[in-house]
């Protein structure tokens, strides 16, 4: 079975959970013998791990051949513009620069380099919609050049590419919903993004969602036939032993960590408020907000206003090793997401023996037993849970031990096998 897979980012160049999930899943799929995957990303830098599959960068494709389809797509879907506040993820390279619109304001036009290839920035920004469609045009060529039995497109960014490929090859399309705009926007959905999402789901022969929470959204909000939608839970990459270096903890207090994009979706303000409550009861704790995002400044100001800045620290965006380091330093990990389709990071925390507190509004809460689950808005409950774990060692010991056990059983290979079954079903029912 040959799979043509469209993604948006790939390690090490990732800015969010999507890249991590894609990588884990493809790695799992590569262990299945009769599967061949061609993974397409908008920009391949050349230093990605290619041992597991063939990676095709869209910027390595000559676009002359697809001129015709470009025209076709342009008339069908008019040019869309997304305001910069709707950028799904902010750029990790913006570390400590806090949103710089100048970075994106250029490059409005399609750039073709000397060899007639499209230039892709491969990063999220105001010219995102441009990129999505450019990617789609190129997808049709790739679809011609690479023989395949099934097409798999990850998230709305890649749906147009998946559709374009399907139109050329006529092979069945599976779309993988890692998040919907309902999660990202806190309910205020961007109609243009919604349109692309719905278009992708409508065109798909099968839809994979990362949790039942997301499945329900896909069914209710996007009007999809329940029989077409299947949940495949994400998993987590096992941490290799060599990574487990000793990390020196500089502070003697317990460390409570929030790690993620500091945006509305992740509920950072509930973390700050809960921290304030906990600090009123005990001194023996420090809070860390790791990450960057459009709400960072507001959170810094709020912490200062509450007078807790000497116990509440910010790190800015963390890359690779630093994420791991942060987990090693943590005694509690908190994910108070307002809406989280899945949420891999609590699993990563549990692997590092860190007890986790997650919101009930997260997909991952459907599969975890050994985690504290609270409503994201329930600051009292959140503060209570944090206090309990840092004060009662027996509680935290149980969470560590059982949590580790639980998370070690969540393997990408089983997720991959599930996806493989979905492929087989889709191909069969299509014939």
């Amino acid at each position: 079975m040959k799979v043509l897979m469209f993604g948006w980012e790939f390690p090490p160049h990732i800015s969010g959970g999507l890249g991590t999930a894609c990588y884990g899943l493809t790695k799992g799929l590569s262990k299945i013998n009769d599967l061949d995957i061609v993974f397409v990303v908008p920009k391949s830098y050349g230093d990605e791990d290619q041992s597991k599959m063939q990676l095709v960068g869209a910027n390595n494709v000559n676009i002359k051949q697809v001129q015709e389809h470009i025209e076709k797509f342009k008339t069908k879907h008019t040019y869309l513009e997304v305001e910069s506040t709707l950028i799904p993820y902010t750029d990790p390279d913006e570390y400590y620069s806090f949103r710089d619109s100048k970075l994106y304001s250029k490059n409005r036009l399609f750039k073709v380099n000397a060899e007639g290839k499209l230039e892709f920035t491969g990063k999220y920004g105001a010219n995102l919609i441009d990129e999505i469609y450019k990617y789609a045009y190129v997808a049709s060529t790739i679809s011609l050049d690479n023989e395949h039995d099934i097409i798999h497109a990850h998230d709305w960014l890649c749906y147009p590419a998946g559709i374009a490929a399907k139109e050329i090859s006529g092979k069945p399309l599976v779309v993988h919903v890692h998040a919907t705009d309902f999660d990202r926007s806190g309910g205020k959905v961007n109609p243009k993004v919604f349109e692309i999402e719905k278009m992708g789901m409508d065109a798909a022969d099968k839809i994979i969602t990362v949790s039942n929470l997301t499945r329900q959204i896909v069914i209710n909000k996007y009007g999809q036939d329940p029989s077409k939608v299947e949940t495949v839970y994400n998993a987590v990459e096992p941490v290799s032993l060599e990574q487990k270096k000793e990390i020196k903890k500089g502070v003697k207090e317990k460390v409570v960590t929030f790690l993620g994009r500091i945006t509305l979706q992740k509920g950072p303000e509930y973390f700050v408020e809960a921290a304030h409550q906990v600090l009123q009861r005990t001194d023996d704790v420090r809070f860390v907000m790791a990450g960057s995002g459009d709400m960072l400044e507001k959170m810094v100001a709020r912490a200062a206003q509450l007078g807790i800045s000497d116990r509440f620290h910010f790190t800015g965006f963390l890359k690779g090793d630093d994420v791991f380091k942060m987990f090693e330093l943590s005694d509690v990990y908190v994910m108070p997401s307002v809406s989280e389709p899945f949420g891999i990071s609590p699993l990563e925390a549990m692997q590092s023996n860190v007890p986790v507190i997650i919101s009930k509004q997260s997909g991952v809460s459907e599969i975890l037993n050994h985690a504290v689950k609270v409503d994201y808005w329930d600051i009292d409950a959140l503060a209570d849970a944090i206090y309990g774990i840092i004060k009662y060692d027996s509680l935290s010991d149980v969470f560590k031990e059982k949590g580790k056990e639980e998370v070690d059983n969540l393997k990408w290979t089983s997720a991959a096998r599930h996806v493989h079954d979905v492929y087989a079903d889709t191909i069969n029912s299509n014939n």
Partner: protein
Amino acid sequence: MKSICLYFQVHQPLRLRRYRFFDIGNNHYYYDDFGNESLLRKMANDSYLPSNKIILKLIHSSNKQFKVSFSISGVLLDLLELYTPDVIDSFKELADTGCVDFVAETYSHSLVALKNKQEFKAQVKMHSKRIEQLFGQKPVAFSNTEMIYSDDIGKTVASMGFKAMLTEGAKHILGWKSPNYLYCNALNPKLKLLMRNYNLSDDIAFRFSVKEWNEWPLTSEKFTTWLDQLDDKEELVNIFMAYETFGEHQKKESGIFKFLKKLPLQILNNGGYKFATPGELVKEYQPIAVAHVPNTISWTDEERDLSAWLGNELQDEAFNKLYELSDAINELDDARLRKDWNYLQSSDHFYYMCTKFFSDGDVRSYFNPYNSPYDAFINYMNVLSDFKLRIEALKKEKSKSVPLETVIAKKDKEIKHYKSELTKLKQQFMLD
């Protein structure tokens, strides 16, 4: 004959390095050595050294008629000593002429006057001592960080024995009154006040190279005619500015150095003027009135208040968390802690956290190492957290250590005990 008081504030910030959460408790070094060294070298070459050279020449060519005053912050003196000792030497050379007066300030160029009187006094004393060591003169006049002043601060300064204090001739304080007279403090009239003539000062400091200014280009002749236009009865003109005006804020290409070379001689040749230091002014003139300054003023920004350093929630939080530590610092009296303590108090750290629209602030935004006030705040608080950990660790260590006398007494007691036992055993042995 009118007196002209030329005063320059000399200060550079000590930059903190990027201090991340991971460093807290692990790494106790807070400073950006490379950034500090390159900034200092640039300042020395572009501003301090050429300006000092010109001033030295002027003193000689004017037959010691030309006089200036400086206040150099303790932080800058430390930096100069470390990176560009040649600048210290050139200031020493100026001091040796007897025409240069050194004015006292807070060691750290800090805002401590607003928070803690005891600490304020200690910092001023530390600075004066340092000036005396380096330049052989004990300051008689005082200028607070960025001309920050209030009646209350003035009273404290008077109680330390200073005769004069320099501050801003702020419009909302003086009203219709002219800054060109000597004033005195409202609570203790013994302290004389020199009010900055901000029009004439800023003509040089801010507007010199602004081509849109209708008086551009400013020449020494033009400036002298402005002085001539002052009322005959007015006694003195206080021209205060940052020393970096020469060669940094106003670049060499603007002709600022030529202006500096020509102006003093032009003024002296014109007749009717002499140059004087703050110390000389308070001896020569009588105060014309009391200056009432119940609310604190400074020479910064259009508002002439504290809003560049304090007032937003970030600045207030950092400022309060910093001075919570002062008791512990004094109690521990540890040299290394004290050094960092001094550096962490610099007003610059709080200036970087300012969120109000920078209009006049442009002058220094060029030196700002941070991308945003939030960024500055995060970095500073991380450093402060580590600093606090060190204080706690040292406190613990000290409480554990027992005074030497008790240890000796205890040992003495033991020795006595063993001795008696020994004699007892000896006797027993003999008997046997």
